[in-house]
Each structure stands twice: as structure tokens, then as C-alpha cells.
């Protein structure tokens, strides 16, 4: 085993860590009611696949809608707004949907609707980004050549984008698979998913072994689906091109419809919240502290993500390692949280370190699938050239990989930071008290203060977005520095 292999093994162990801890403490237990398990499995599986599939379709059209917008600031604003439903506490999203879809069909269909609503924006932002970086001049070429849209999509778009689409699809799939509140509220009788079962085993029956076993099965399923992933190689466009041809007004309209349904319901809460601003005055010290808590958690998570993404680059290329990253999926959120609760102290600075680590553990492989892998692969030939020129691993990393990947890495780090700033589920497990504004939002919700919670959640979102922009900006500054 050489140094690089040891490094890879270390990364893999890091990602597997929650499982190792859980298995060490609890062992598997198979004391399950199989009909119930089968029922939960079927529900999880069907709702996740359908949700991811439709979120992809909606997101795709909305991505094309983005291409209609020429003004950069407007596009940026819409992209940010499109992320909103994915970010806010479930309650606000649910209320918006229930207002919009009436009567609401509960069951698998209901879950799918909610998930579409939550994820379409994220999918659209990711896809628009990837279409721009991947297809580049081909879109113009196709336009000039006068080939039909159908031909373009079947012959150019899907073959080239297959892998990116799959990455985003798997990302959404995993999120839907482990979704907890949505199936319970919107799923009617089909609301029992594996994630719910895991929670039930853990909380009510105190049967951790069964919970760990279920989570393991959940991971195996996603692993199997991921293995079906197609291996492709990407190219990154190196010039600005026009995506006019691809744009879709209908997509833009769809975005506006979905967003306005959402914003209308949510805005009402914000207005009510403003009427009770005096409440926040009483909380100013706590708010102040938790504002920094949010920033600190976001920054740490982003930085850690940034570093780990480059660790992954350093450990390339190795088929098994790649396959592992592509297919692995961390155990359920609650279980990962508890695994970290059990090891080491939970006082003082520890929650501040543990929470970002857990968030990174839960999101790293998703980020890898989503676009990191293809970005790395796009540099394949340059890496090879560097090798032929006799460059050391370090020189290739420093001069070829790092400068060209900073942009993408900081985008992904920004996403992780955005997520971290809105997290309360993991923080609630690992922290002894409210550390961040998101946790506070949740606390307000559990004490009748729904309008205050909506206004605070919007503030959290703004903080999250500024963290996201911070990472993108820092990435640009860094890459400009490097290219001087």
C-alpha cells in the first residue's frame, strides 16, 4: 500500500465512519416486521424515484427558462429565489403547496408534488450551470446547422449530459429517500417510509440495531442504483456562448408560477412577522449570537467541503475509489448525528466541529456525483499531459487541477454552506443549545410563533445566500490571485 492508497483508504474510512461507529455500538438486529419493512421499502422507493424524476423534468424546463433572462442580476435573483423552497422549514413549503394544489391528493402522488416543489429550483440551478459549462459551442453549432430540437436532445444533449443528469437525479433521489416530514404529512397511508421506520425503531422501540440495519439497507439500495450510473467523460467549454436557442419561455413561466405560489403564502407570514418586530428586540442578544453561530457553522462547513473536495482530487484517479464515491450514501441524518454524539466530548467547541463534519459527511458524495466528478474528469487529458511533461503529482495538482477547479469547488462549498446555515436537524442532535438562527426558527415554530419564525427563516436564508456568494466570490478572488 503506497501513500496515495493509504490516503484513499483514509478518505473512505472517514466517509464510512458513522456506520462503523453505529455497528460497533449496536450490531445489526433483524428483529423487524417484514411486511412492514417491505411496505416502507416500497413507499420509499417509489416516492423517491418518482419525485426525483419529476423534479428533474420541472427543473430542466425551469433551467431552460433561465436562459431567457439576459440581465445577470435578474437571473441571479431568480436562481436564488428558486432555491428558497428547498431551504426553508417544511411548514412554509407545505402551506404554499396546500394553497396552490387544492384539493391536495395525499399518497405517493402527494409526496411527489411536495418534493417537486422543494427540489425543482435546486435542480434548475444545477442543470443551467452544467448545461452552460458542458455543452458550450455545441448549442450554437446545432442552431446554425439547423438541426431539430428533437435531434439535438437525442443526439447531442442527452449523450453529453447523461452523466450530469444522472448525478443530479441521484442527488435528489437520495434527498427524497431520506425525507422524513414530507412523507408523513403528504403521504397519507403511504407515509411510512424507511426513514420513518428508522426513526420509529430508534425513538419508540429503542431498537438501535434495527435502525442501523434499516439504514444500511437504505444505503445499499442507493448504492445499487448508483452503480447503474453511466461512466462518461466531460469537457468544459472555454468560451462564452449563446444559449438563446435552448431557452424556453414556458420554462420561465413555470418558474414564475411555482415561485409566486410559494412567495405569496410565505410573504403573508413575513408581513405578519414584521408587525411583531418588537418581539425580536427582546431577543436581540440571542439573535446576535446566533447570527454568528450561523456564519461560523456555514463557513466551517464550506471550508471543510472545499478541502475535502480537493482531497478527493488528490486521491484520483482510481476506479474503485471513484465507484465508492459515486455510489456511497451516508446513513440517515439522525443516525449519523447520533454516531457523532457517541464519540468524544460534546461540550464547548465540539458541537461547532462536529456539526460541520456531519453535514459534510452527509453531503460530500452527493456533491461529488452532482458535478465534481465530471469537473475532475474534464481535466483528464491535461493531467496526462502534465505527467508526460514529467510533472510531479504536486505540480499537477498545484498548477493544473487546483486553479481550474477552484471555481466549481467554491460553488459546491457555497452550496454546503447554504445548507449548513439552514440546518436544524443535525444541530439539534449535536448541540446543547440553540447555536444558530435556523435552530431558533425551529424553536419559535414549536412555541406558537409562526410569523416570527417565517421572518427569521427568511433572514436565515439571506445569511445562507450571502455565505454562498461569499464562497463563490472568494473562489474568484483566489483563482485570480493564482493566475497572476
Amino acid at each position: 500500500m503506497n501513500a496515495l492508497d493509504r490516503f484513499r483508504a483514509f478518505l473512505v474510512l472517514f466517509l464510512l465512519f458513522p456506520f462503523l461507529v453505529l455497528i460497533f455500538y449496536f450490531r445489526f438486529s433483524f428483529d423487524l416486521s417484514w411486511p412492514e419493512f417491505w411496505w416502507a421499502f416500497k413507499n420509499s422507493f417509489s416516492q423517491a424515484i418518482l419525485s426525483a424524476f419529476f423534479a428533474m423534468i420541472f427543473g430542466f424546463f425551469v433551467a431552460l427558462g433561465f436562459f431567457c433572462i439576459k440581465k445577470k442580476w435578474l437571473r441571479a435573483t431568480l436562481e436564488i429565489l428558486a432555491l428558497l423552497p428547498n431551504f426553508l422549514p417544511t411548514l412554509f413549503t407545505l402551506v404554499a403547496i396546500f394553497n396552490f394544489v387544492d384539493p391536495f391528493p395525499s399518497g405517493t402522488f402527494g409526496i411527489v408534488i411536495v418534493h417537486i416543489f422543494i427540489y425543482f429550483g435546486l435542480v434548475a440551478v444545477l442543470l443551467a450551470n452544467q448545461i452552460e459549462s458542458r455543452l458550450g459551442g455545441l448549442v450554437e453549432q446545432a442552431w446554425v446547422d439547423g438541426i431539430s430540437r428533437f435531434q439535438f436532445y437525442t443526439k447531442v444533449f442527452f449523450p453529453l449530459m447523461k452523466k450530469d443528469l444522472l448525478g443530479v437525479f441521484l442527488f435528489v433521489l437520495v434527498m427524497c429517500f431520506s425525507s422524513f416530514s414530507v412523507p408523513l404529512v403528504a403521504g397519507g397511508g403511504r407515509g411510512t417510509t424507511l426513514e420513518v421506520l428508522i426513526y420509529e425503531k430508534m425513538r419508540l422501540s429503542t431498537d438501535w440495531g434495527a435502525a442501523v440495519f434499516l439504514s444500511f439497507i437504505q444505503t445499499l439500495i442507493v448504492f445499487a442504483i448508483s452503480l447503474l450510473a453511466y461512466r462518461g467523460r466531460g469537457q468544459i467549454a472555454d468560451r462564452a456562448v449563446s444559449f438563446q436557442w435552448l431557452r424556453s419561455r414556458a420554462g420561465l413561466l413555470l418558474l414564475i408560477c411555482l415561485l409566486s405560489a410559494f412567495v405569496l403564502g410565505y410573504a403573508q407570514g413575513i408581513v405578519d412577522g414584521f408587525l411583531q418586530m418588537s418581539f425580536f428586540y427582546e431577543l436581540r442578544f440571542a439573535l446576535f449570537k446566533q447570527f454568528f453561530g450561523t456564519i461560523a457553522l456555514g463557513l466551517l462547513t464550506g471550508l471543510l467541503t472545499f478541502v475535502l473536495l480537493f482531497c478527493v482530487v488528490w486521491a484520483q484517479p482510481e476506479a474503485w475509489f471513484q465507484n465508492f464515491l459515486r455510489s456511497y450514501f451516508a446513513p440517515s441524518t439522525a443516525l449519523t448525528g447520533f454516531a457523532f454524539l457517541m464519540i468524544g466530548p460534546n461540550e464547548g467547541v465540539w458541537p461547532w466541529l462536529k456539526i460541520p463534519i456531519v453535514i459534510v459527511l452527509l453531503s460530500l458524495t452527493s456533491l461529488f456525483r452532482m458535478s465534481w466528478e465530471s469537473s475532475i474528469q474534464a481535466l483528464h487529458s491535461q493531467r496526462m499531459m502534465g505527467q508526460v511533461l514529467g510533472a510531479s503529482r504536486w505540480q499537477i495538482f498545484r498548477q493544473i487541477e487546483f486553479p481550474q477547479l477552484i471555481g466549481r469547488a467554491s460553488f459546491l462549498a457555497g452550496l454546503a454552506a447554504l445548507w449548513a446555515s439552514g440546518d436544524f436537524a443535525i444541530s439539534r442532535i449535536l448541540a446543547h443549545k440553540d447555536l444558530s438562527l435556523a435552530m431558533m426558527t425551529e424553536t419559535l415554530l414549536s412555541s406558537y410563533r409562526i410569523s416570527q419564525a417565517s421572518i427569521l427563516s427568511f433572514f436565515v436564508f439571506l445569511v445562507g445566500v450571502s455565505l454562498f456568494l461569499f464562497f463563490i466570490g472568494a473562489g474568484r478572488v483566489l483563482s485570480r490571485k493564482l493566475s497572476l
Partner: protein
Amino acid sequence: MSLVENLVYEYESFKLEIPIWKILDQGITVLSGDSGVGKTTIFRILIGLEKCSRLKWTFDGIDLAKLSVPEKKLGVVFQSLELFPHMTARQNILFAAEARKVSEERYEKKLKHWSETLQMKKFLDQKAGTLSGGEKQRVALVRAMISEPRMLLLDEAFSSLDEKLRQESREALKVLLKEEKIPALLITHDRQDIEALADKVSVLKEGRIVEE
């Protein structure tokens, strides 16, 4: 004379079988043949990018096949040139110099000299991604040569240029090779390349070398 032995390679129905092949250790050897016949595969095998377990390549008494890709110390120009798009022309060349730990003195001297001979001065500080085909070509050539390679390998290196530029590039190549006294292996299917440059021509046909 450098000697390639046992170059055997199979991939699906495609097959290469070259028991022995002599490459000049001075001047330019051309490997020619129709497209798709496997020239580029041979090129990649020699560089070490494709596996070929029984290959032996004796050069100055050393078996290059046993060395790793960087250890082989070959100067390589791919058909796609593979300049690093985010670096300037100068940074591209410097990258290779640093990689092979070329002394600063030599690097400065050579760069100055070649950029004059090859008229590269005006675009040395431009990003490689924005250079024209002919400019890229010259940068790739200098990048390959800066580190005093054992041998220069070029794969269809002129194919993307127009006739006039091609002529210029051939001249540039000749000058460089003569000054540096480095042998070269050129892969091409262009008759004019062969006429202008070849000291020896090997033709690849149905997976075998037919020498001329």
C-alpha cells in the same frame, strides 16, 4: 539506433503486432499509414499511456519501457496540443521547465532564443486558450523541447494548420531539432510532412510495420 521490440497490443478486433522496429537516434523517423490503422495507439504505448507488458524499447542502452511516464523524459506534442488553457503561453513552457527541473538560466536563455526564432514574443503572455492554431503549435513545441528530452514525439502535430503555417511549423521543428540535436518520431499521414522532414519512413499497415 533505438530499438522497439515486442510491441503487441490487442483491443477487441484491433490488433498491433510489431516484433521489432528501429527508430533513428538522430534525425526524424516518420511513422505513416492510413487513418485508423493504429498510429496513435503506438504513440501512446511508447509514451506509456497504454499498457503493453512485453514491450522493450532500448535507447542509449536503457530500456525505456521499464520506466514510468515521467521518467522516460520524452518531449511530446499531441494532435490536440493539450496546452493548459488557464495558463499563458509562458506559464505553459515554464510548467514543463519546472517539471523537469531545468535550470533557470537555461530556461531564460532558451525561451529568449526560441521566442525570437519562432516569433513568439507578442503572444507569450496571452492565455493559451486564446491563441490561434499556429501560435498554439509553437508553444506546444517549445514546451516539449524546453526540458531537453531524450526524444521528441509528435502525433499529427501539424494537421490543424493551414498549408502556410504548416510549412512554417516544419521549418521551426527542423531548426529546433538541429540546434538541440534531439531525435524525433513524427506520426503523420501527410505526404508533404514526409517529404520535408523524414530521414526514415516506417509505414504501418494492418498492425505491422512495413519499412520503406
